[in-house]
């Protein structure tokens, strides 16, 4: 029954999701590759000051009305865990 209801992903949803991504890049003129390189630079800079886990860093573009926002989630390595190693 549920399988029947959700049998097909609605094409309008795909269009909306695809547009959300495309518009972010159109508006900022930043390619996914450039965003990756920005992320590497950020990790390098922050690592010089504080211990972070480079694999857990997430950097994303978010849309807020017609404004674009760069959102970085950078988990710190806790001091206790570092001492334990």
């Amino acid at each position: 029954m549920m399988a029947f209801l959700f049998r097909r992903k609605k094409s309008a949803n795909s269009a909306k999701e695809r547009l959300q991504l495309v518009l972010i890049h159109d508006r900022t003129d930043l390619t996914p590759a450039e965003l990756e390189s920005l992320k590497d630079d950020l990790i390098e800079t922050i690592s010089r000051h504080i211990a972070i886990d480079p694999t857990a860093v997430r950097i994303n573009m978010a849309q807020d009305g017609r404004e674009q926002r760069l959102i970085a989630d950078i988990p710190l390595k806790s001091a206790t865990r570092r001492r334990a190693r």
Partner: protein
Amino acid sequence: MTAKVITIASGKGGVGKTTAVANIAVALATRGQKVTCIDGDIGLRNLDVVLGLENRIVYDLVDVIEGRCRLRQAMIRDKRLSELYLIPAAQTRDKTAVSPSDMVRLCDELRPEVDWIIIDSPAGIERGFKNAIAAADRVLVMTNPEISAVRDADRVIGLLEADGKGPAALIINRLNPAMVRRGDMLSVEDVLDLLAIELIGIVPEDENVIVASNKGLPLALDGKNKAGQAFQNIARRLMGEKVPFLDFETQNVFQRLLWRK
């Protein structure tokens, strides 16, 4: 009289700009407003045929700008609506025959004569688009609920903001309520979420649009069909009236049956 200059732009071609210009101009004229519409698509003139005025062209926009005739001589009066005029585009020239400052000068000369100047922008974001928005007090961006049209509309909205011509208002054209209901077309809410600008009109897909252009009789002349009614509503909103949006999407089965009669 000091006219308000309204430009309709879209980026992508074929979304219905010319139809919208013709119908909004007609709708304003049926409400006692004095309107001149200008075809900004030099080399690809079409507003004349949609309005059914193609046989009456003597002079065009480029003739006025290059001084071969006076502004008045290029204004074709619509015989059905005495307060509606068209300045046609030149067909044998290209967009470089006009500059943005030419458009500003022309509109400044026209402003004291009418209530509204409605400019039809060509597709694209180059010279023709820049000419079309140069004199605009307000730009209406038109899109279809379709991925490429929404993307191009977003580009145009961004360019208008950068040019100090924002905030633009949005017209969503060719909405197919049945497709929205079954999840196969972006809804009005989806498009507004993506583009994040003010909405000024929703025009449903309507076969009458093609019938009307076949005849050269704009839909908004009689308000019986849904698309014509939607254009009339846009005209009323431009005039400052608060008009609720036609609600196509939330109709339940019973309402749909009633609608069909």
